[in-house]
């Protein structure tokens, strides 16, 4: 059974995402995929299927189910979702019937929400994935964010109830990182200050990177280095020539030449992605083994 949905309101960065386009770094393409991978998984479990879905930003979205029937799952951040005029649980799940409207607006916390379906989006995979890469302009719908008027087709949607879904415990505390590729190029004193100074999340954030504000000027005196361009991974914390720290996110460029002091651990990168502009973040170093332990403990 298929369902047709029409986008009736779209923030500027409403994108189709799946788990990511892995395996193409050697072609110069990073994996993309959801900014909050665990929330994306949760929304999928609530929808009862593992198909591509939509990543919603603080600008929100709305859609109308023009025909058919489908179950949706919602998770990530804290948004306000309305099914017609009825406010839904967040995270949550509901069946949409023909003519139903779904409206999602920003709530109390977070930058990214996920809307997933129990049907498969009728969009062609590009290089094995439907994830939209904002940098390479690949995937999703013609490699671009969704817009008002876009119509999406869902194949195989049934509206069936999902199995039981465990909700994760909320986490807080410092964002943990492992020392980075170029950590040894930073003076001990700068490294110590990096791990003990609060930074601000700036307004300059997108799927490629999050710039940090640092009123304390931790990197003001860091000398600009000429480095050979090398591999970048999501979570890398690089220091630009003017001392601005920037955390590279899912649509990162695959290689880069700025020094990287650390890399946010996988278990904390989702949480970091949800930190809003003008909030404060502290970083704490951990060992790789500890990062792996935290990742194992996180699994449901």
């Amino acid at each position, binding site marked *: 059974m298929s369902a047709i949905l029409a986008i009736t309101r779209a923030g500027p960065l409403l994108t189709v995402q799946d788990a990511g386009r*892995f*395996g*193409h*770094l*050697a*072609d*110069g*393409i990073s994996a993309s995929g959801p900014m909050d991978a665990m929330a994306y998984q949760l929304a999928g479990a609530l929808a009862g299927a593992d198909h591509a879905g939509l990543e919603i930003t603080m600008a929100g979205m709305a859609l109308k189910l023009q025909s058919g029937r489908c179950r949706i799952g919602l998770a990530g951040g804290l948004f306000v979702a309305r099914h017609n005029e009825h406010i839904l649980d967040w995270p949550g799940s509901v069946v949409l019937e023909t003519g139903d409207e779904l409206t999602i607006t920003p709530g109390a916390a977070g930058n990214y929400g996920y809307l997933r379906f129990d049907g498969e989006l009728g969009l062609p995979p*590009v*290089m094995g994935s439907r994830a939209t890469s904002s*940098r*390479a*302009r*690949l995937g999703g719908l013609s490699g671009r964010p969704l817009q008002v008027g876009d119509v999406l087709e869902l194949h195989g949607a049934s509206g069936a109830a999902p199995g039981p879904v465990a909700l994760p415990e909320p986490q807080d505390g410092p964002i943990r990182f*492992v*020392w*980075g*590729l170029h950590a040894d190029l930073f003076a001990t004193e700068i490294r110590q200050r990096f791990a003990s100074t609060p930074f601000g999340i700036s307004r300059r954030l997108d799927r490629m990177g999050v710039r940090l504000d640092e009123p304390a000027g931790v990197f003001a005196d860091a000398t600009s280095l000429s*480095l*050979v*361009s*090398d*591999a970048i*991974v*999501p*979570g*890398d914390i690089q220091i630009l020539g003017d001392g601005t720290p920037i955390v590279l996110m899912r649509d990162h*460029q*695959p*290689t*880069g030449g700025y020094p990287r002091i650390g*890399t*946010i*651990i*996988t278990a904390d990168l989702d949480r970091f992605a949800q930190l809003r502009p003008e909030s404060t973040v502290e970083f704490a170093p951990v060992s*790789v*083994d500890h*990062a*792996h332990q935290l*990742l*194992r403990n996180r*699994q449901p």
Partner: protein
Amino acid sequence: MTGSPVIETFPTPTIVTLGDSALLVRFGTALTESANRAAIALATQLNREPLAGVLEVVPNLVSVLLRYDPLQSRRADIVGELRLRLFALDPAAVSASRDWTISVHFDGPDLDSVAADLGLSSAEFIAAHNARPVRVLATGFAPGFVYCGMHPDNLVVPRRTEVRPMVPPGTVLFAAGQTAITATELPTGWHIIGSTDFNNFDPAAAAPTQLAPGDQLHFVVAS
């Protein structure tokens, strides 16, 4: 084979942590021919005989990225196997490169100033640039974007101080002893010396990029 020098030894590699889901084998911290050849040789070897637990192998200018899933594999196991591979890495086993001829329209806005900075006329610069083949050193930065080199010391200019906001696919760039070719629209701080109709990125193709690290490029003036 066109003039590949015989490399007696590779630089000593170091295995570096890159986050909690990747390792980097680095053959140096500066771009040298031998470090680049070593990176290509290791990546070729690891792609030919995959290491258990490694999800993706990516050659960079002087290093190789190995991505793994810490929930499926133990880092120590991968490092152990990797050390064995590195110990046995044979410089003589570098795979034969493919040869490509790339036609370039030498009409870039920075061609004359680059030539002048090198004390050459534009015609002399073009002749020197095309005099010998260069190798693809790495693909990176953007889809299908290739770094090619190394040019001899008398053809080295630094990057521009200003970044051009966007240049089209097929732009031929020059800086730091290298020629680079764009395959998508992107900003660049390199000098633009020309353009090519050669397209190194097609997302619909079975292999989205054609050029591989180690391939030899012969630049010719487009007729």
